């Protein structure tokens, strides 16, 4: 499995009067990123004014069998049905957007590796259980993803910004900074300087540093920045933890990413 970092992003090319055809889908997951969408309230309803919702299982019963301009997909395609559904969505979608850490980078469900599943099925369900699950991987393991909205969960304002960019036919861009910049804006003291763990320097910004502001480390749920100097951060963290602890820390959200595989496998 490899997440391709460099690719040509599909864009929407529509006449102004035409409504954007949108589908919102969830694979196996907590649906917390869709909850963030709902929490946007009037803001998301404003966005929906220019949109025709073709399919949104969590939000409505009505669905149409139609092509999509944008598919927003949350969660991990764990079961065979989900992998099939994901491929079907890809075929009829112009711009496929991964919504949140599970879809974008694997996130929490990807902590469980494929070869651990059988032992866990036995322990949790008992012998003889016939599972539906195959593996917990991000969408890019199965289809081309045009853009990822990061976070566990996603940040509401980032969702609005990115969706508006996609809607107006632009290829969306990431913030050109790491979580450290978010953290400075919140006037948080630097955890690394205090001898505490943090993945902020290597992590894509845009989260408003909520975790560090709330007293926790950055766990990297926005994914690693392209320019990230991971070995330099590892050198700092080596003074705080052993190799296994560091792998666990990096592996909380990043276990299915090429960066994790490169440095911890």
């Amino acid at each position, binding site marked *: 499995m490899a997440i391709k970092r460099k690719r040509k992003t599909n864009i929407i090319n529509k006449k102004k009067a035409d409504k954007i055809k949108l589908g919102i889908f*969830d*694979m*196996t*997951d*907590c*649906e*917390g*990123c*869709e*909850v*963030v969408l*709902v*929490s946007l*309230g*009037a803001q998301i*309803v404003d966005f*929906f004014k220019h949109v025709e*919702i073709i399919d*949104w*299982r*969590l*939000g*409505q*019963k*009505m669905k149409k069998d139609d092509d999509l301009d944008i598919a927003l997909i949350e969660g*991990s395609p*764990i*079961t065979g*049905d*989900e992998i099939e*559904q994901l491929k*079907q969505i890809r075929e009829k979608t112009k711009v496929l957007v991964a919504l949140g850490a599970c879809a974008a980078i694997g*996130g*929490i*469900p990807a*902590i*469980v590796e494929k070869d*651990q*599943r059988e032992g*866990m*099925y036995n*322990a*949790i*369900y*008992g012998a003889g*259980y*016939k*599972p*539906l*699950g195959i593996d917990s991987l991000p969408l890019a393991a199965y289809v081309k993803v045009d853009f990822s909205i990061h976070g*566990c*969960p996603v940040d509401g304002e980032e969702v609005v910004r990115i969706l508006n960019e996609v809607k107006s036919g632009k290829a969306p861009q990431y913030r050109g900074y790491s979580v450290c910049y978010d953290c400075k804006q919140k006037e948080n003291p630097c955890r690394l300087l205090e001898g505490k763990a943090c993945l902020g320097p290597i992590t894509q910004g845009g989260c408003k540093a*909520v975790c560090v*502001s*709330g*007293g*926790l480390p950055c*766990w990297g749920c926005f994914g690693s920045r392209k320019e990230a100097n991971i070995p330099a951060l590892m050198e700092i963290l080596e003074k705080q933890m052993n190799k296994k602890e560091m792998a*666990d820390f990096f592996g*909380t959200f990043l276990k299915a990413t090429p960066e994790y595989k490169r440095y911890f496998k």
Partner: protein
Amino acid sequence: MSLPNYIAKIEGHGEIQLDVENNTARLAILEGERLFEGMIVQKRHNETYWITPRICGVCPIAHNLACLAAVENAFGVSLSPSSVALRRILLAAQNIQSHVLHLYFLSLPEYLGVDSGVEISKTHPVHFKAAVALRAFSDMVAETIGGRAVHPITPTTGGFHKYPSQDDLKMIKKETAKVKKLGEHTYNFAAGIIYPDLRRGTEYFTTVGDDDSYPMTNTSRVISTKGLNQSIQEYSSLIKEKVKDYSTAKFSEHNGRGFMVGSLARFKNAHDRLLGPAREMYDKNKELFSHHNSFLNNLAQAIELNHFIAEIDKQLDFLLKEGVDEKIAEFQPRESRAVGSAEVPRGTLYYELAFDNDGRVTYANIITPTAQNLTNIEEDANEILKTIGKDKSPEEKKDLIEKLIRAYDPCLSCSVH
């Protein structure tokens, strides 16, 4: 390849499988297994309640606090009174967040003849505005106390990493006064609906704490409408989980039968503990609630929402008067095993955790409210087919069962975990 016909407007993936010939139904849960109970084995105690909220984005605070209760019970940690109050506020905010989402966006639109919450913004703007304002209020409280509206950050073993300031608390107090009217609006909305008249006796389970407050965080005993009264530490002798060949979620049973948890069950067992207007609203509908009708869970949630607003208000008064103790209780991880539980939006949530001497997890079992309700949902669905749905077409039968399932506010993502 044809895909399952997932039920719309519920959290997670499931399908009603109707056997028309035999007039029976079953609920197939088709969510993938994320294996959280395996995932957190070997994790440190302070990673558990960071990871497990990801079981459910609708009730992440519930998972955070129930998991913390297990950790704190295992290590013998006792919280300061102000941390207890803050946890109650946080869970009250969670329960409002979840009830609002469920009532206005998932469950009640169909009673108005509308398909979705987005449509409600056009057809019933007053309801939509109430929903948005209540959601914004509860998100704000969750964010101020817990660090974020979805997936909390600040709660930690023994207290909180970050405590709200007195100004924060005053601000919440001011906003709480504003939403009381919206709580009443929600009640009037839900009380004005005529629910399908299903009647089927079942046993209602609720956990309660050591005092006589309405059950929320850190409950300690399981009680039931059939006289059960046992420590939560013995939960596994009361609740048996059955693996089904058509479901990735286990179905709970008590003495080989279904039982019900959630708002309606809390009313059956603890309505006399409701605060303020919620108590009056319950009394007005006392006769209705004496029917054993699972559809009334919607009404119970709407009334409970008023309780949770009053609960936030009450705890704020305490914190504004007594101040916030910003210490985190000291503790030493040790080899131990304990159960923690809480009364969360959909019912009782149990966490059983065992630790080694370094505070790493050696065993985990999680039983979510929806997993507990699954057997009861199927029993209700089959009762519908025999009674109020008997003469309907297969499509209408399915619709009625869907409505029933939504009344339970099930979280299938939670039930599989």
